[in-house]
């Protein structure tokens, strides 16, 4: 009964599965998102075949860029390195994140919501602060951890320093794990796990499955929408993250595919966008696998957990709970303490991590940042952009996801593929493509240079993650809940606002927060569109980072601190209001409303007895 429902439009005439409204809405969606998502991609790809010297020269078609890009012999090694690194940190982070999400969402654990939130914080912290922080700890020669270990009697300082060396493949893996690899997955998975129906787990327990087996055979398989989305969102970006590898891999001549793409853009002047595009096109192959794979996975089985007979409740791990709790707290300490120290401590240090300078401590960075004539304005712009994004994008994408999952309108596969296609080109190229689109599209050029252009970009930049995650959330919701509302006389909008929105609210809060972070941290996508009047904190931070006078890491850190601080506040507020909705497994405190129920027993008893006694 799951996939048979058709969204019934408010108009009177409805054709089976293909209402005119549906066709119309889909046409609008596909055209709007198509222009916005695919047009820049196409422009970028077309441009990669253009070898004309100058922008204003006529198009000169050639495969040169592609030939040259792929003629680099070291590319193959880089590709292999990419997969090795990805495989290693994913095969660690995925299981770890799954277990943590399960512990947080499915078991009775003290402060599980706060612990979950700490993973959000870890996600918000800029990856570069994490990487740099760990270099100070695990540098083979001066790393604090290594220095401590040398004090142990049985550990000799080797020629190469050590025992830990962050500049190594294990070091890169470690940095990934400490940055986003774990926290992002925990963050994305936990709300989905919260939608688990306890009775399904109970049925497995009674059938003779242990807690672990229940998790593996019942909880995880029914969480396939969320798990697969998280996995796929990561793998389509496999060629896009490069910061960690750049910092830690360069000194040991360890290159990955993304550093190669990145180098075409950063090492060349003019940047070799054409060759970078050619390299990035490999992502298309991944997308070509991901789209049908996801469709197959999601259609193959049903994953409805929140139905009309939903039973809330959590698993009691007994004393194991404390072991799990301790491990999570320890991991969180690793994940957050280092970058937070780097950011906060570093902001007061002349040079973060350096204690042997003439002036170790200084307020200069704070003065510089706060004294920056663009700071206040950037702060304001960021607040406007991020807050609008945090509110609008969950709403927008929840409707798109609804259309994708819950209707049988034509063209859903196209729309869904469009969203995946948006991952085809890395951020820097995408930003350029967007610039071209804004300048080349009559409607859009009107808002070019205004904050509305940025708004449009930041609202839409989280489109892939948002739609896919919300899709996953919808798949967990029983259609009977909507049907009951429709029969009760609620139109589509009311059903959406009273039933769906509250039910998927935890996911929406998450999406809102992610989009808030994304837009607060946006650089590549908006740098070409922002002007002085619309600078954001993130662009300010980027300017500090690329300062020719040496990277003003400390000042960039201060700006990041503002971004993180803002995000934490917003996320806390959103959670405060949003997480009250959705399904809850702990008993809601009905304290303020308890009064009528209190009066219950006698009154009810009398009442019912009266009814029965006749």
């Amino acid at each position: 009964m799951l996939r048979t429902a058709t969204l019934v439009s408010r108009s009177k005439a409805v054709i089976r599965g293909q209402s005119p409204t549906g066709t119309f809405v889909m046409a609008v969606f596909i055209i709007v998102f198509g222009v916005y998502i695919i047009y820049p991609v196409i422009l970028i790809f077309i441009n990669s075949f253009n070898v004309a010297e100058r922008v204003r020269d006529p198009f000169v078609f050639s495969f040169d860029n592609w030939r040259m890009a792929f003629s680099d012999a070291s590319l193959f090694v880089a590709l292999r390195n990419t997969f090795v690194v990805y495989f290693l940190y994913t095969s660690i982070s995925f299981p770890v994140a799954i277990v943590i999400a399960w512990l947080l969402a499915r078991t009775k654990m003290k402060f599980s919501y706060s612990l979950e939130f700490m993973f959000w914080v870890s996600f918000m912290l800029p990856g570069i602060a994490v990487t740099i922080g760990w270099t100070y700890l695990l540098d083979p020669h001066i790393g604090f951890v290594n220095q401590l270990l040398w004090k142990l009697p049985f550990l000799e300082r080797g020629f190469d320093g050590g025992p830990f060396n962050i500049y190594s493949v294990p070091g890169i893996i470690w940095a990934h794990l400490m940055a986003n690899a774990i926290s992002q997955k925990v963050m994305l998975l936990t709300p989905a796990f919260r939608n688990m129906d306890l009775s399904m787990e109970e049925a497995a327990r009674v059938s003779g499955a242990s807690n672990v087996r229940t998790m593996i055979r019942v909880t995880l398989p029914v969480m396939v929408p969320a798990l697969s989305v998280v996995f796929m969102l990561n793998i389509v970006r496999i060629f896009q993250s490069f910061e960690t590898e750049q910092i830690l891999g360069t000194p040991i001549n360890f290159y990955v595919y993304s550093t190669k793409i990145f180098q075409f853009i950063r090492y060349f002047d003019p940047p070799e966008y054409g060759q970078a595009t050619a390299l990035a096109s490999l992502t298309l192959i991944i997308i070509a696998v991901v789209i049908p794979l996801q469709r197959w996975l999601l259609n193959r089985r049903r994953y409805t957990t929140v139905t009309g007979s939903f039973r809330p409740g959590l698993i009691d791990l007994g004393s194991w709970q404390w072991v799990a709790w301790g491990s999570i707290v320890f991991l969180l300490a690793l994940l957050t303490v280092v970058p937070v120290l780097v950011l906060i401590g570093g902001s007061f240090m002349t040079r973060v991590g350096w204690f042997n300078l003439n002036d170790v401590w200084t307020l200069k960075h704070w003065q510089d940042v706060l004294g920056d004539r663009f700071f206040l304005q950037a702060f304001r712009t960021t607040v406007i952009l991020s807050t609008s994004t945090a509110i609008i994008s969950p709403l927008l994408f929840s409707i798109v996801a609804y259309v994708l999952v819950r209707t049988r309108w034509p063209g859903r596969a196209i729309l869904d593929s469009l969203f995946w296609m948006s991952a085809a080109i890395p951020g820097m190229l995408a930003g350029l493509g967007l610039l071209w689109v804004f300048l080349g599209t009559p409607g859009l050029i009107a808002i070019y240079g205004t904050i509305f252009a940025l708004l449009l970009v930041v609202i839409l930049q989280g489109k892939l993650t948002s739609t896919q995650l919300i899709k996953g959330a919808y798949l967990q919701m029983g259609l009977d809940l909507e049907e009951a509302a429709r029969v009760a006389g609620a139109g589509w909008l009311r059903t959406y606002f009273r039933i769906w929105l509250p039910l998927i609210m935890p996911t929406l809060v998450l999406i809102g927060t992610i989009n808030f972070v994304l837009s607060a941290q946006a650089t590549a996508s908006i740098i070409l569109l922002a002007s002085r009047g619309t600078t954001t904190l993130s662009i300010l931070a980027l300017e500090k980072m690329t300062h020719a006078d040496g990277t003003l890491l400390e000042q960039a850190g201060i700006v990041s601190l503002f971004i993180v601080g803002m995000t934490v506040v917003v996320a806390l507020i959103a959670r405060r209001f949003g997480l009250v909705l959705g399904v809850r497994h702990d008993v809601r405190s009905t304290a303020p409303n308890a009064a009528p129920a209190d009066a219950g027993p006698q009154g009810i008893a009398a009442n019912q007895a009266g009814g029965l006694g006749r």
Partner: protein
Amino acid sequence: GSDPTPTPEPTATPVPPTPTPTAMAMADDPTATPVPEPTADPFEAEWDALVAAAQEEGRLDAFICCALGREFDAHIDAFQENFGIEIVSATGSSRQQADRVLAERAAGVYSLDVWTGGLTTTNTRLVPEGALTDLRPLLIHPDVLDGDNWYFGDLFWGDPEMKYIVGYGGNASNAPIAYNTELLPDPTVIQSYVDLVKPEFVGKIVMRDPREAGTANNHPFYFTQGLDETYLIPLFRDMEGVIASDARQAAEWLAQGRFALCIFSCGTEVEELKEQGLPVQDQFPHPLKEGATIGTGGNNIFVMDQAPHPNAAKLFLNWMLGPEGQTLYQESNGDNSLRIDISKDNVVSGNLPAEGIEYLVPSADPGHQSKIDDALDWFRAELPKHGY
């Protein structure tokens, strides 16, 4: 009245190559010859008209790249105070700014007036695209046009056609090599680049990635001096040098004593660490045998074609190259201005050209840019052979 700047068609006339890249040899293009000292009155009138026209426009959109970008506040305030014109300045990467400006121009959007920045992006992209305007008609202030005020005896032109780019930065450099004073207590053991590729420095050299365009300003130097065979190949082949991911990492490793030498421009980062009392020097105290250089770095100014505020741009150009603009520039971060009629008190000593040294000016070579490209190609082909 405003006097819209005519769009200059890029001249097809090849510019005569400058015979030597040495100083004082700046071409004496007749058109660039300063106008004979005008009577005060006509200039004053023209200047007043310009200021008035600029004030009418009321605003200047500037892109200030590189080091000056974050230190530009003093200029903004002074310009505002002098003329009551607001400067709206942006900073960031030249490459991205070029992407943006060129895309805008293709769409008929003209949003930028002036730009200060390096030569590479300008020469490889802005000039060929016709995005810049001929500066010579715009340069009117006698103070600017007077060759005696300038180090090379004339304005320094950064483009082969000598009409679009004026350079005003003039830091001297003995060699783009920084070192750790504890590991290399006596820097005089190095008298030539070739001295670097000695066994005692194996594993002691950290470098920026020479394949990166941003490090490439000095590259042609190695090839004109024949250093590629004697210095570069052994350097990559034998020295087990380590490429740092960025200048900060390189400078810190140098200061930590992990490496004795840092090559390929670790300069400014090292300077900061030196100021903090760490045992590093950003320069050798002596020039190397192959010669010392002077370059404008990222300190050149140019005006956009079809600038939205042409008069403000013209005013800013003349003011910026004048004593006030240049003094503020020197103050901003201790760089040396090519302007010599102003006090040099605020210039970091290492940046000042020393007496009695004949400095090479690689960027004065009209073929400089193509030499950089060739050099980058060479590096990009060579390094992988040695495992980089």
